[in-house]
C-alpha cells in the first residue's frame, strides 16, 4: 500500500482554472456563430487566426523563457478568441496574429504570466492595434448581403438602425459585439455555471445607460450599441484584472460604465468601451485595498 500524505483538504471544487476557461470559451461560441451568420466565413477566419496566434505565442514564449508550458489552462485560447471577436471580419491575417501574440507575450507574459498582468490582454492588444493601424479598426464591414463595403456603426450614426437590428446584430461592427442575443446567451451560461457573477456586467451596462441618458443619449441604444455589452460580459469580468472584493466590483463596474458614457459623448472616437475597461482595470488593485472585509473578532479597520 502506497499511501499519500498530502494535507487537508482532501477534496477540491470541480471548478479548476481550465474548467472556468472552458466555460468562457463555450459562452463565446454563440458570438462566434452569430458573427459568421452576420459577416460570413471571413469572421471565422479572423477569430481562428487570433486564437491560434495567442496559443502558439504563449507556448513559444513559455518554452523560450524556460517556464512550464501551461497553454492547457486555456487562458491564452480565451484571450485570442476574445481579441478575434473584437476585430472586424476579414481583418488582415497579420493584424489578428500580431494582436494575439502581443496580448499573451507583451501584456501577459512580460508581466509574469497568468494572474500577474495588470490590464486585460485582449483589450490592451485591441488598443495597440487601434492606435497603430486605425484604418483597420475604424472601418467596419457591413453585414453580408447589405450593399456596402464598409458602413458607419450605430455609434457613428445614431438613429439609423432599429432596436431589433441592434439586438440581433444585422449591423456593422466587430465580429462578436454585434449580436446582443448571442452575448446574452453567453452571459446566462456564465452565470448559471457560476463562472462569473451577474454583478459586473449588469452594473456596468446600467451605469453606462444611466449616465449616457443624463448626457442626452437614448439608454436602450446605449446598451445595445458598440462593444458595451460584449465588453461588460466578457472583458470587464476578467478575473485577473477586476477587483476581488464585492464592493470593489460594484465601484469598478459603475465607474467603467460612467467612463463609457463620457468617452462616447466627448471623445473623438465613437467607441469608448476599450479605454473605459482598461482604466477600470488599473483601479482594481486600489479598490481591493479600499474595500477589505472586516475580520472576525476584529473591529473594522483594526490591525493585528
Amino acid at each position, binding site marked *: *500500500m502506497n*499511501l*499519500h500524505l498530502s494535507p487537508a*483538504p*482532501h477534496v477540491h*471544487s470541480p471548478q479548476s*482554472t481550465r474548467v472556468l476557461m472552458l466555460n468562457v470559451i463555450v459562452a463565446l461560441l454563440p458570438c462566434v456563430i452569430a458573427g459568421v451568420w452576420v459577416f460570413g466565413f471571413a469572421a471565422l477566419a479572423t477569430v481562428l487566426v487570433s486564437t491560434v496566434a495567442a496559443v502558439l505565442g504563449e507556448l513559444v514564449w513559455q518554452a523560450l523563457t524556460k517556464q512550464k508550458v501551461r497553454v492547457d*489552462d486555456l487562458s491564452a485560447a480565451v484571450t485570442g478568441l476574445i481579441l478575434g471577436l473584437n476585430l472586424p471580419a476579414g481583418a488582415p491575417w497579420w493584424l489578428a496574429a500580431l494582436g494575439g501574440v502581443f496580448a499573451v507575450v507583451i501584456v501577459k507574459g512580460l508581466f509574469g504570466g497568468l494572474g500577474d498582468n495588470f490590464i486585460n490582454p485582449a483589450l490592451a492588444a485591441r488598443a495597440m492595434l487601434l492606435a497603430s493601424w486605425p484604418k483597420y479598426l475604424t472601418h467596419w464591414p457591413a453585414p453580408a448581403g447589405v450593399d456596402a463595403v464598409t458602413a458607419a456603426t450605430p455609434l457613428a450614426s445614431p438613429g439609423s438602425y432599429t432596436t431589433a437590428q441592434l439586438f440581433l446584430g444585422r449591423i456593422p461592427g466587430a465580429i462578436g459585439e454585434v449580436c446582443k442575443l448571442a452575448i446574452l446567451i453567453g452571459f446566462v451560461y456564465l452565470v448559471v455555471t457560476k463562472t462569473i457573477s451577474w454583478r459586473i456586467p449588469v452594473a456596468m451596462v446600467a451605469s453606462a445607460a444611466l449616465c449616457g441618458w443624463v448626457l442626452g443619449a437614448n439608454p436602450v441604444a446605449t446598451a445595445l450599441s458598440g462593444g458595451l455589452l460584449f465588453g461588460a460580459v466578457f472583458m470587464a469580468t476578467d478575473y485577473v484584472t477586476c477587483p476581488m472584493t464585492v464592493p470593489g466590483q460594484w465601484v469598478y463596474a459603475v465607474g467603467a460604465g460612467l467612463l463609457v458614457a463620457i468617452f462616447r459623448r466627448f471623445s473623438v472616437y465613437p467607441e469608448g468601451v476599450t479605454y473605459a475597461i482598461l482604466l477600470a482595470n488599473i483601479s482594481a488593485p486600489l479598490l481591493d485595498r479600499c474595500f477589505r472585509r472586516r475580520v472576525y473578532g476584529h473591529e473594522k479597520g483594526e*490591525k493585528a
Partner: protein
Amino acid sequence: MSSNRTFRGGVHPLHGSHEGKAPTRGEAVRDYIAQTVTILMGMHLGAPSTPCVQVGDHVKLGQPIGEPVGFLGLPVHASVSGEVVAVGPVQSVTNPSAMAVTIKNDFKDEWVPLNPLGDVETCPADQIVPAIKAAGVCGMGGASFPTHVKFAVKEGQYCDTIILNGAECETHLTCDHRLMLEDSKRIVDGLRAAMRALGVKKGVIAIEDNKPDAIEAMRKAAQGREGVEVMPLLTKYPQGGEKQLIHVVTGREVPTKKLPLDVHVIVLNVGTAKAIADAVIDGRPLISRITTVTGHVKKPSNLRVRVGTPVSDLIRECGGYSIPESDVGKVVMGGAMTGFPCPHDRVPVAKANNGVVVYSQREAVELEESPCIRCGRCIDACPIGLNPCKLKYLCDAGDMKRAGEENVMDCVVCGSCSYICPARRRLTTSFKAMKDKIAAEARKGKG
C-alpha cells in the same frame, strides 16, 4: 425544518453527493471489540500522560493506565480488560513516536469499581467537573481539548450559554448524526450536567438542517428539560467551526486571541456531552467512541470501538477495502476538509477520531499548484474574512510580520480556501505552517 441561520462565507464540499454522508447515515451503530488495543498517552491537546502500568500487568476495564501531566493533563484508561503486552512509542496519525500502552483483550470486560454520581439533575453540582476530569473526557469533535479545562471559569468570567455542536459539517462523517438518533437522552443529560456544573441557564443544541431526523429526535429528548433548546442551522461548511457556531447561535464574536468563555460561551461536541453523561451518571471513563468508516470499504459503517483499536481492524470489520489494496491511495482520519492522512492503516483510533475515509490512488493524487488567477473565490469562501490570496504570497515569502498584520493567526484552518481555489493552490497548508512558525517564535520569546 430547513434553516437560514448561518455565517458569512463557507463552501459546499461534495454538496452534490450529500457531503459524502449518504453511504453511512442510515447505518445504525454497531459494536466492534478489538483483540488488541494500542492506547495512546497523548490523545488530548496538552502534555501526554505518563504510563502507570508495566508489561505483564493485568488491567481491568476503565483502570487508569496513564497519569495526567501538567495543566492540560488528562488520565488515560484501559479500554479493554486483559494483559499489558507493550509500553513504548508507536506510530500515531501525526506522531512517529507516540507513547502508548498495548493491551491484549481477555474479553471478560471486568470493570474497575466506579463512582457514579447518579441522576444529572440531583447529583451534587460541585462534583461534576472533577468527575469529568477523572473520566479523561476531552473534546470528541476533533480538537481534543480537555473538557474540564473548558469549565475552568476564571475570576471575573462567567458562562451564560452552553452550545452542543451537532452540526457535523465535515464531509463523510455521520457518527454524531447516529449518536443523536440513538442516544438522544444521554446527550441532553450530558448538556444538563454541564449546565448544572456552572449554573448555566441556557443550553442550545445546534444541528445542520441536513439531519431533520436528528433535529426531531433531539427536540423530543429536550422536551421538559430545563433551559434546553434545539436550533437547526443551514447546511454549509464550516458551520460546526467553534467561532462560526458561536456567532450563529448567540450573535457574539469571539474577539481575536480570546476564548469562547470571554463571550460567556462554552461549546461542546455532542459526543463529548454523551461522554460527560457517562462520566457523571455511571462514573464510567471515556473508553469507546463512534467512528464513521467510509469511502472505498465494502460495507461503510458506524462502529462503536474501544479507544486504541487499530484502523486496519475497522476496515476489516467493514468488509475490507472495496478496491485492490494497491489502489488504496489515502486513508484519512477525519473528514475530507480537515482530516489527517494516515502513514499506514495500523495506527490506533484516539478519543477524538470521528472517522476513517479511504480514497483511491486517483482521488489521492495531489493536484499541482498553478498560478493564482485572482478570481476572489477564496475571499468569498473565508468564514473569517481574511484575504487568502494575498496572505499566501506573504506566507510563502516567509514574511512573518506582514502575514501577522494580515491576521494569519485568526485563520481557523478550515480548508475552505484550498477547496474552492481553481488554481489548486495549497492556501490552508501555507497558513497552517505560518501559524505554527509564529506560535513557535512567540514561545521562544517567552522562554
